[in-house]
C-alpha cells in the first residue's frame, strides 16, 4: 500500500511517538495514532496521518461535544431539516403552492480573528455563507455576534482586533451583497486574549429544491468536481512548513500563505452556483454539493461520499493549484478559501464546468480559479488519494469520517440555587438620576450604530427592519409575498461568568424574545458554543451544563435547534478561559409582513405596559456593574412564564393591539423605554411619563431594581387600553407602567430626563472606537 513517506508508529515507545507527532505538527494523541495503525494494519502514510489529524480534530469530529449535543431538541412542526448537514432548515410558510424554508448556519472564527482580525472575520463570513449556499439556497442575510476585550486604550491589540474584525465582516458581507440585519457586541477583559467572532447566515430555499451534502443514491462513477480558488498552502495548520520542504522559488509565496478571503471571487462563485442550481432544476438532476472547510479537499469529498454510503478516489494531480510541486498532504488537506465541491453525473459535468468556467469565467476572475473534475465516487467504501503514479492514501472511509469521542473529566455541576425575587442586594438607596446616564453609557448598553453603520443592511432590497431598528432584523425575502423572516442573536457574557447553565437558558429565551418583539413567531434556533479548554474539567463542566440549559429552555419554549457549532480552547495565555459563551440565534417567521412591530414609540397619549416580573436579583446586570454589586445572583428564570410572556405579546400583536415593543435586556425596563424614545428623534420626539415603580411592583421590588434590573420581558405601547387589558386579563404579569407624552422627556415620578441629553450619553461612547 502507500509506498513512500510513511509515518512511523510501530516499534516506537509512547514518548518517542508523542515527540514525532509534535515534530510533524500533529494534534493526534498517542492512543489515537496507535488506533489508526491497528485499524490499517500498518503505519499510515504522511498524507493519511495528516488526514486523520484533520478529521479527528475537535473542529471536524466534535469529539468532546457530539454526545452532549444529542440532548438538544431538534424536531418539531417547524423543522424542515434538522442538524444533519452544514445547515438546518426551518419552515417559513407557503406562497403560490411552494413551501419555503429558511436555511440557517452559525459558525465561529475566533482564533484567526484574534491574530489577523480583518482576514479572520472576513473568512468567517465567507465560510458561513458557503454552508448556506450548499443547501441549494439563496443567501438572504447575515448576523455577527461579537465579543471583544477592553478597547479603551487606542494603542491596544484589543482595539486593533475590535476595529479590524468589524471592518472584515463589513468588507466581505457588503461585497458579496448580503444584508447584515442582526448581531450584538460585548466588551469584557476576559476577551482580551480571545475575541469571539461568530457569524450567522440565512438562506431561502423551496422545500422541493433542497440540495444535500451527500453523494446521491446510485452515484457510483459520478464525477467529483472542485469549484473555486486555486488551492494554495494556506491553512495547513503549520504542519506544511515544519514537515515538508517546498521549492526555494516558492518561498515568498509561502510566506504570504495565510488564509486569504476573496469576496470578489466569492460574489461570482455564488452567482454561478445559483445558475448551476437553475440548470439542475430545469433538467431534474439530483446532485451533491458541499463547501470546503476544515480538512480541505480530503475532508469535503470524504464526507460527501461517506454520507452517501460510498467511497471516493481523488487524483491530486487534477487539482488546480497556485504553486508548483506542492506536497500531496498540503493539496489534500490545506484550507484554501472560496472552494466548493459538486458530485454530478458525468453527462452533466460539461454543463457545470461551462457555467463556472465560461458563463461566469472564473479563470478570468482570479488566477487559477476554475471548476475541474478531480475524482469519482466509488462503490468500495475506501477513501483513496492518488498523486503522480502513486497512491498516497487508502483508508476505510467510515473509519476516517466516523464519529469518535474523547473521554473527558467533568466536575460536579454547581447546584442551581433557587432565588428569592424579593431578596435585595442593593444597599445604598440611590436616586435613578444618579445612575440612568451611566447605565445608558455602559459599554454593553450604548448605541452600536457607530459599528454597524458600515455594514450594508439593505442590499437585495428586501429589508423591512435594518440593523438597530429593533430587537431583531426583518426581511421580506419572497418577492411579492407577505412572508417575512426575523433574525436575532443573544448570549450575555456577564451572565456566563456567573452561571453557565442559566446563561445558556437565558440566551435561548432572549433570542426568542427579540424575535417576538417584532411580532414574529420563533421558528427555531442555532447555537455557537464558545468555551475554554475541554481538557480542563472546570471549563468542560461549563460546556456540559450550558448544553443542559439550552435543552431545558428550547424544550420549554418549543423552539428546536436545527444547526450549531462548537468552538473550544478559547483560552487566554494565562490559562483563564473566556466567560461561558453559549451564543444563540433565533429565526422568526411572519405570515404577513404588515403585522411587523417596530421599536419607535408611535403616538402621544398611549399607554406603556411591562410584560414581565421585576426581581431584586440583579446579578450579572449592568446595574450591578454600575453600583459595584458583586454578590448578587442571576434573576430567577421561569421558563413557563417566559413562554407565556412571548405568547401574550404575539397574541396581542396578532390582534393589532401593539403599536411598538422592545424586549427588556441590558439596562432593564428604563433603558428599553429610553431606546423606544430615542428611535422617535429622527421625527417628532415622543416622551414618556412613567409611574412610580412601586405602583407596578406592588412595593415588593426596589426602585432601582425595577427600573434597571434585567428580569426580562417586554415594554409595549398600546393605544386601545380596554381591548388590551381584556386580552390580558388572564395574565397576572402585565403591568401598566406609564404613558407617552408630547414633551421630549422621560419623567420618572418627579425626576424628568431630557431625551436628547440621554441620547447623547447613549450614542457617544463607541464613536471613539468606531469613528
Amino acid at each position, binding site marked *: 500500500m502507500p509506498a513512500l513517506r510513511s509515518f512511523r508508529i510501530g516499534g516506537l515507545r509512547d514518548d518517542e511517538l508523542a515527540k514525532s507527532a509534535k515534530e510533524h505538527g500533529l494534534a493526534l494523541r498517542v492512543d489515537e495514532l496507535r488506533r489508526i495503525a491497528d485499524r490499517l494494519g500498518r503505519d499510515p502514510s504522511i498524507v493519511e496521518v495528516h488526514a486523520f489529524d484533520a478529521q479527528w480534530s475537535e473542529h471536524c469530529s466534535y469529539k468532546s461535544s457530539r454526545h452532549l449535543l444529542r440532548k438538544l431538541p431538534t424536531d418539531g412542526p417547524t423543522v424542515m431539516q434538522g442538524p444533519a448537514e452544514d445547515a438546518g432548515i426551518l419552515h417559513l410558510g407557503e406562497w403560490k403552492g411552494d413551501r419555503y424554508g429558511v436555511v440557517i448556519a452559525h459558525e465561529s472564527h475566533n482564533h484567526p480573528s484574534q491574530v489577523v482580525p480583518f482576514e479572520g472575520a472576513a473568512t468567517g463570513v465567507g465560510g458561513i455563507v458557503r454552508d448556506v449556499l450548499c443547501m441549494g439556497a439563496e443567501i438572504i442575510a447575515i448576523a455577527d455576534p461579537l465579543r471583544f476585550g477592553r478597547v479603551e486604550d487606542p494603542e491596544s491589540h484589543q482595539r486593533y482586533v475590535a476595529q479590524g474584525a468589524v471592518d472584515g465582516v*463589513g468588507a466581505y458581507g*457588503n*461585497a*458579496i*451583497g448580503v444584508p447584515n440585519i442582526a448581531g450584538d457586541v460585548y466588551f469584557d477583559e476576559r476577551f482580551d486574549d480571545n475575541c469571539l467572532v461568530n457569524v450567522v447566515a440565512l438562506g431561502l430555499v423551496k422545500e422541493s429544491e433542497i440540495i444535500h451534502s451527500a453523494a446521491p443514491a446510485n452515484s457510483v462513477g459520478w464525477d467529483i468536481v472542485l469549484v473555486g480558488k486555486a488551492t494554495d498552502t494556506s491553512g495547513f495548520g503549520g504542519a506544511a512548513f515544519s514537515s515538508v520542504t517546498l521549492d526555494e522559488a516558492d518561498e515568498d509565496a509561502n510566506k504570504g500563505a495565510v488564509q486569504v478571503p476573496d469576496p*470578489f471571487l466569492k*460574489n*461570482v462563485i455564488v*452567482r454561478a452556483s445559483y445558475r448551476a442550481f437553475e440548470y439542475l432544476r430545469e433538467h431534474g438532476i439530483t446532485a451533491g454539493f458541499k463547501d470546503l472547510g476544515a480538512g480541505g479537499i480530503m475532508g469535503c469529498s470524504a464526507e460527501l461520499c461517506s454520507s452517501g454510503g460510498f467511497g471516493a478516489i481523488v487524483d491530486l494531480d487534477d487539482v488546480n493549484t497556485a504553486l508548483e510541486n506542492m506536497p500531496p498532504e498540503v493539496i489534500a488537506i490545506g484550507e484554501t478559501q472560496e472552494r466548493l465541491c459538486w458530485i454530478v453525473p458525468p453527462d452533466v459535468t460539461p454543463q457545470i464546468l461551462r457555467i463556472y468556467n*465560461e*458563463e*461566469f*469565467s472564473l479563470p*478570468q*476572475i482570479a488566477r487559477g480559479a476554475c471548476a475541474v473534475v478531480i475524482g469519482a465516487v466509488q462503490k468500495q467504501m475506501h477513501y483513496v488519494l492518488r498523486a503522480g503514479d502513486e497512491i498516497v492514501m487508502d483508508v476505510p472511509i467510515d473509519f476516517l469520517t466516523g464519529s469518535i469521542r474523547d473521554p473527558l473529566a467533568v466536575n460536579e455541576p454547581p447546584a442551581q440555587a433557587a432565588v428569592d425575587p424579593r431578596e435585595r442586594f442593593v444597599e445604598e438607596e440611590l436616586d435613578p438620576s444618579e445612575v440612568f446616564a451611566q447605565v445608558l453609557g455602559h459599554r454593553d448598553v450604548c448605541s452600536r450604530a457607530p459599528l*454597524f*453603520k*458600515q*455594514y*450594508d*443592511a*439593505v*442590499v*437585495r*432590497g*428586501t*429589508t*423591512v427592519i*435594518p440593523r438597530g*431598528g429593533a430587537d431583531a432584523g426583518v426581511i*421580506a425575502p419572497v*418577492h*411579492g409575498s*407577505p412572508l*417575512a423572516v426575523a433574525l436575532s442573536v443573544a448570549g450575555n457574557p456577564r451572565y456566563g461568568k456567573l452561571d453557565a447553565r442559566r446563561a445558556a437558558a437565558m440566551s435561548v429565551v432572549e433570542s426568542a424574545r427579540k424575535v417576538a418583539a417584532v411580532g414574529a413567531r420563533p421558528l427555531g434556533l442555532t447555537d455557537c458554543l464558545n468555551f475554554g479548554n475541554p481538557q480542563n474539567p472546570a471549563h468542560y463542566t461549563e460546556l456540559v451544563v450550558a448544553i443542559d440549559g439550552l435543552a431545558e429552555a428550547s424544550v420549554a419554549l418549543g423552539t428546536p435547534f436545527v444547526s450549531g457549532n462548537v468552538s473550544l480552547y478559547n483560552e487566554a495565555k494565562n490559562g483563564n478561559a473566556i466567560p461561558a459563551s453559549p451564543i444563540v440565534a433565533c429565526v422568526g417567521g411572519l405570515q404577513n*409582513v*404588515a403585522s*411587523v412591530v417596530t421599536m419607535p414609540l*408611535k403616538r402621544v397619549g398611549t399607554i406603556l405596559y411591562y410584560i414581565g416580573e421585576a426581581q431584586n436579583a440583579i446579578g450579572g446586570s449592568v446595574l450591578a456593574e454600575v453600583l459595584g454589586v458583586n454578590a448578587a445572583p442571576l434573576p430567577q428564570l421561569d421558563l413557563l412564564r417566559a413562554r407565556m410572556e412571548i405568547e401574550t405579546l404575539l397574541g396581542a400583536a396578532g390582534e393589532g393591539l401593539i*403599536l411598538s415593543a422592545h424586549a427588556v435586556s441590558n439596562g432593564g425596563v428604563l433603558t428599553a423605554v429610553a431606546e423606544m424614545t430615542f428611535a422617535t428623534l*429622527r*421625527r417628532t420626539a415622543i416622551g414618556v411619563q412613567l409611574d412610580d415603580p412601586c405602583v407596578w411592583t406592588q412595593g415588593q421590588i426596589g426602585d432601582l431594581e425595577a427600573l434597571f434590573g434585567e428580569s426580562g420581558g417586554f415594554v409595549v405601547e398600546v393605544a386601545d387600553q380596554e381591548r388590551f387589558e381584556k386580552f390580558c386579563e388572564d395574565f397576572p404579569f402585565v403591568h401598566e407602567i406609564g404613558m407617552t407624552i408630547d414633551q421630549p422627556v422621560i419623567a420618572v415620578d418627579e425626576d424628568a430626563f431630557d431625551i436628547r441629553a440621554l441620547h447623547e450619553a447613549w450614542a457617544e461612547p463607541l464613536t471613539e472606537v468606531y*469613528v
Partner: protein
Amino acid sequence: MSARLAVLVFPGTNSEEETLRLARDVGIDAHIVHWSRAQTLGAYDAYVLPGGFAHEDRIRAGAVAAHDAMMDAVIDGAQRGKLVLGICNGAQIALEAGLVPGTGPVRKPTAAFTRNGPVPKFVCKHVYVKLAIEPKRCAITAGLPQDALIPAWAAHGEGRLAASDEHLREITAGGHLAFVYAHADGTVDASATPNGSAMGCAGLVNAAGNVLAIMPHPERDAWNFNHLDRREDGDVLAPSGGAALFRSFAEALR
C-alpha cells in the same frame, strides 16, 4: 414591441436582482446581461448599471469597470441617445466612463465619486434626494414632479463628489447637478449629506439628458415595507417613493 432594458452585471456587481425586480414591476421589459454576453448589449434600447463592487473597485470605484468591454456598447448607445441609469457603483462607473457630467472626453473623467468624508468609511444610511433640475431636463426624471423628493438608501464607501473648482463650476453651470441630498421634509443643508459630497451632490446628468447617475439606491426603498418612514396604516406591499424614479424611467421607455 416595447423598449428592452439591459441590467448589466459586471464581475462584482451585487444589486442586479432588486434592480431587475423593480424595473419589471413598473412595467419595463428588463433583462440581466452578464459580462460574458457583452456582445449582445447592442441590441438593447436602454441600460441600467446597478450597484456593487464591479471589478473589486480596484484603483477607484468604477475606474476599471469603465474600461470593461460591456461599457463599449453602453458608451456607444449613450452617444446615440439611448437612456442610461447608473445607481451607486453604476453611478461611479458612468462617471469614470465620462458619461456624466459628460463635460470631458469619454473615459477621461472630469470628477470622481471618491472616498467618503469626513469619515473615510462605508456608510449605510436612509436618505432623501431632491430633484435639483427641471424634471424634463432629463428623460429619466421627466415623469417626476418639480422638486421631487425620493427616499433611498445610501450604501457606499466612495460617494463623495470631488472635482476641481473649474469642473465643479461646469457641473453647476451646465445644469448637471441632478439630485442633492435632503431631509425628510425636503429642506436641504449640509447635515443631510451623508458622505461630504461637493454641493451635496447625490446625482449627475449629462448635457443631452439621457444619462443619469445617482449614488443612493431608490430600488432599496421600493415598497412600503422597506420604507423607514412608512405610515402605520397603508399597504406595506405597495410601492414606496423609491419606485417613482423607475416609473418615470418606464414612461420614458414607452
